[in-house]
């Protein structure tokens, strides 16, 4: 069993699924068949993800590794592996896709639904490969490959103006990708100079490079990841994209694909350029803080629900990046946890907002009011997802947020003090959104609007359940990532500050 290439299977199944879904013959294309096929493949992928989780042993480093030489001359390998970080990203990805499928069941009706589901599966396959890749070149290839399905999902299935949004998305991502490409090539130069060229992460981590090289390459990687995550000032594609894409697509983009940015910071920036990462912390932390506050203010000022949710993510990616570059155990583990929790919580928000917009026929907050009266279940679930987003303790995002803020405070007290304003701003954008859309008297014309149907409920309830469960029991996830973060910090060469007042001899409990 253990020799079975589980990770390859995990990547191949959704890609095959994409092909099968795409080639469903013409008379059946407009039926539910392609959707059912896609859902089936996504469920098989989810089962594979769970199997991988059961075989995972926290603390054993990279596991389930597969290494095959791909292009020997360049030291390129098809190399996969999973550690705590990768595992959580994989589980997030395999968990969200079936949910998106269920929630978006009729989203693409009349517009070639088979294509929508096929592209989504392709996106999943590439994203899974990104999270499992332990060869930088392989990573780069699939990193770019994700753009193809993403581009078609945005451009093909959103609202009016989607073509422009898709193009803007693509330009930004290609720009980031180009910089990354240059850095990837540079990495080869350094590696080849040191002897045998190799793109294997494990080899690159041992590489001794000059300070200048390390910093230049770090900057190249970091710019690509800042576009992806995104952070201020490279974020302006985000709101345009989430506004025009379907909510399901936004989930795939913001909750899964954008995580590649912060994933890359941990995996490659800290992993390959530890000294440069330390060197860059002041700048990165400043950008993260600006993103937290700036994103929150922009979200407060939005009149489009989907833009608003997109911009809350700018604020949250600020938190995640802040945690990563604070370089402490709490920051590292907290940021990884944050990536999962943000994925789940924001997915719930996007999908529920999508349900709301479908009912009202508009996404403008100023045109929606008093919906709680008509759709109490939708309103209640939307509130829970919103409360998770604003970091209410008992829901999952809180634990990650407080861990990141503790790390920020540890870095410097004023960094913590700036970050903490995020909790007030988040309360404003979430509760004001709820107040404007859900509360107040019901308006004429809304009489025919029905509350959530069974399919819609089945899609989002698992997400909301996860918000509560992870809020009270986040420890299993932390158990998986703590060793990963420990070894990463060790690699960077930092250790946590001891408390100012050492604990009494008897200890806490």
């Amino acid at each position: 069993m253990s020799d079975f290439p589980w990770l390859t299977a995990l990547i191949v199944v959704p890609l095959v699924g994409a092909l099968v879904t795409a080639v469903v013959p013409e008379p059946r294309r407009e039926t539910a068949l392609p959707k059912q096929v896609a859902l089936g493949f996504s469920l098989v992928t989810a089962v594979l993800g769970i199997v991988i989780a059961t075989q995972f042993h926290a603390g054993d480093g990279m596991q389930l590794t597969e290494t095959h030489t791909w292009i020997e001359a360049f030291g390129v390998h098809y190399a996969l592996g999973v550690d705590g970080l990768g595992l959580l990203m994989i589980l997030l990805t395999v968990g969200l896709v079936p949910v998106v499928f269920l929630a978006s069941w009729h989203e693409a009706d009349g517009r070639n639904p088979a294509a929508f589901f096929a592209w989504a599966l392709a996106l999943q396959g590439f994203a899974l490969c990104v999270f499992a890749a332990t060869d930088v070149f392989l990573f780069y290839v699939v990193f770019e490959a994700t753009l193809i399905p993403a581009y078609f999902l945005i451009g093909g299935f959103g609202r009016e103006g989607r073509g422009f949004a898709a193009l803007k998305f693509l330009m930004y991502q290609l720009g980031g990708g180009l910089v990354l490409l240059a850095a990837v090539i540079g990495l080869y130069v350094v590696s080849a100079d040191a002897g045998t060229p190799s793109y294997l992460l494990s080899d690159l981590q041992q590489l001794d490079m000059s300070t200048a090289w390390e910093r230049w390459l770090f900057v190249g990687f970091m710019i690509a990841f800042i576009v992806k995550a995104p952070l201020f000032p490279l974020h302006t594609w985000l709101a345009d994209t989430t506004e025009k894409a379907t909510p399901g697509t936004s989930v795939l983009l913001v909750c899964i694909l954008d995580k590649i940015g912060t994933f890359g910071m941990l995996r490659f920036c800290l992993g390959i350029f530890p000294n440069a990462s330390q060197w860059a912390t002041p700048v990165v932390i400043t950008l993260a803080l600006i993103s937290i506050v700036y994103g929150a203010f922009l979200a407060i000022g939005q009149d489009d629900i989907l833009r608003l949710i997109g911009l809350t993510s700018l604020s949250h990616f600020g938190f995640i990046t802040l945690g990563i570059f604070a370089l402490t155990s709490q920051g590292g583990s907290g940021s990884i946890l944050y990536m999962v929790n943000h994925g789940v919580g924001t997915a719930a928000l996007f999908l529920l907002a999508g349900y709301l917009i479908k009912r009202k026929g508009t996404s403008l907050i100023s045109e929606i009011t008093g919906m709680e009266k008509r759709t109490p279940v939708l309103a209640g679930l939307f509130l829970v997802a919103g409360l998770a987003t604003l970091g209410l303790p008992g829901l999952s995002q809180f634990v990650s947020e407080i861990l990141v803020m503790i790390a920020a405070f540890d870095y410097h007290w004023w960094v913590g003090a700036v970050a903490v304003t995020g909790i007030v701003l988040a309360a404003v954008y979430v509760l004001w959104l709820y107040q404007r859309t859900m509360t107040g008297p019901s308006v004429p014309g809304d009489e025919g609007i029905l509350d959530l149907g069974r399919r819609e409920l089945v899609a989002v309830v698992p997400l909301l359940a996860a918000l509560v469960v992870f809020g009270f029991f986040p420890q299993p996830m932390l158990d998986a990532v703590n060793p990963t973060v420990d070894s990463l910090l060790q690699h960077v060469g930092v250790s946590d500050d001891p408390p100012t007042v050492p604990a009494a001899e008897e200890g806490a409990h």
Partner: protein
Amino acid sequence: MYAFHEAGGIPVVDPSAADGVFGLLWLVIALPLAGAAVLLIGGRFTDRWGHLLGTALPIGSFAISVALFVSLLGRDDDKRQIGQHLYTWFETGHLDVGMDLLYDPLSALFLLLITGVGSLIHVYSIGYMAHDPRRRRFFGYLNLFVAAMLMLVLSENYLGLFLGWEGVGLASYLLIGFWQHKPTAAAAAKKAFVINRVGDMGLSLAIMLFFITFGSTSFTVISAGAGEASSTTVTILGLLLLLGACGKSAQFPLQAWLLDAMEGPTPVSALIHAATMVTAGVYLIVRSNFIFDLAPHAQTAVVVVAVISIFWGAWIGSSKDDIKKALAGSTMSQIGYMMLAAGLGVAGYAFAIFHLLTHGFFKANMFLGAGSVMHGMDDDVDMRHYGMVRKAMPVTYLTFGMGYLAIIGFPGFSGFWSKDKIIETALADNWLVGLCALLGAGVTGFYMTRLMLMTFFTDKRWEKGVHPHESPSVMTVPLMVLAALSVLGGVFLIGDWIVDFLAPVVGTPEHEDPPIPALAVTVLAVLVVAVGVAVAWLLVGRRDVPREAPQDVSFATRAGRNELYGNLINDTLVVNPGKHLTTALLATDKYAVDGVLTGGPVAVGALAGVARRVQNGYVRSYALSILLGAILVAAVLLAVNLR
């Protein structure tokens, strides 16, 4: 004896494992939590019996709380700290946060208050909310509140406390906005949450600083190490905790939400915005005694905030015609008294809690009484439309009267003992502060007498078609119980019981001879109150009360009606600048950031045009660019390799 710090007599938290009946501790929280889950997830299926389940579960918690209390009394002083470890909440690096509970004399008293008064208010609500179509949901929220409040007072660390702290904030938000079809209620709910979040920044920062300083957020670890932290650190910690307390307890300058919170159903005002949640700030400070005892500057700040709040609230209470808002002003003022006592340190902690308990009885009593009056007056809250209600609602009148006598400090009633002790302690600490506390008692006498006269005495000023009637017994029985407690609440002080009982938590006060004999203080206080009552009688009782609020009033009245312009101040200093900043940032983002980085919409538009020209062939051009990219990569790699 209990373990003491080397410096000073501050007790440390050092609980023993829960055994016997104490093993049931978690169940106190779990019962109402389960109620909330069943009622809120169960939906309409629970409509018929939801309110009964929702009432039975807090009563179950009360029964366990009594059993625990009796067992605690059976233990020696030094064995009255019991800890229960449920599970590890989260752990990373050397941060280890447990779902740990701490049952000690302080939490024991809170348990009785929360579950006892809470159960009575649940019973009352069966009647009060009988005709509300969403009654089941109301009980779900109330259960959620009780569970969160219990978590707040039972947690053994600041993060668990914060869980309860935000939980009660959520319940408060949901219940203020319970009638959310009313835009005012929805706005009030959001306002309460957001202002509380400002306070929460303080508590959050305190949690971070606790971890940085002590490597833990557990009371056990922090109380043991507090003596070794620098005085700057403990002072900052104290101030941060005070900021949190100001938000939750509606103390100056974070008080503006409490008046609006009266939009919620009246049982909510009684339970959350009078008896329990708003006193959480006082709990936080008393619980953190191991910090405040070492931070005299922070204690001074607490006293200053408290004195301002005493008068701020009393001023509002004196000018409002809305019975609930007048009571809310009074709540802010009375919590000011508790904060004052807490700010006085070891000498005052026990009296802060004592006043918190008696206030919980008499203010819950009066809020429910006000609800009963509103019930009879078709939900009118304007006291200018009341008058002579005592004839129509004798039970409500009599029970409310007990609360009234208690709050003004009529000799023998519960509030008399608790407020007297605070004035006495304040005078012993600082004559100016003591004088303020004394004056505040006089103002209390004034505004409560005004409220009492306008409602139950003076001429009938009822609206047409209003026929007040006594409320059903499901509402009056809780009133009677609370009235009895309002009268008898002073028993906690017999033989200084509450001081000795809380000593293992907050330490034993030193016995100093007060500058003025205690009896003289008491007589003085009663005289000052009598003056306040007399002034109210002259200004309200002996004159006709106009049905419309007169407009040619003094600045003091106008300011009081406008809540001392608290909203105006907030709007000017925070809300409007925030709006301008948002607008400015939106423009910056659109024109500067996006403009520069996207090369302006024009550039992208041009690109789009190019793309369109290739026969809408996005696919082809993209595939081409990838191919070009791949060739480029291969070429560069080869070039490097062939060097």
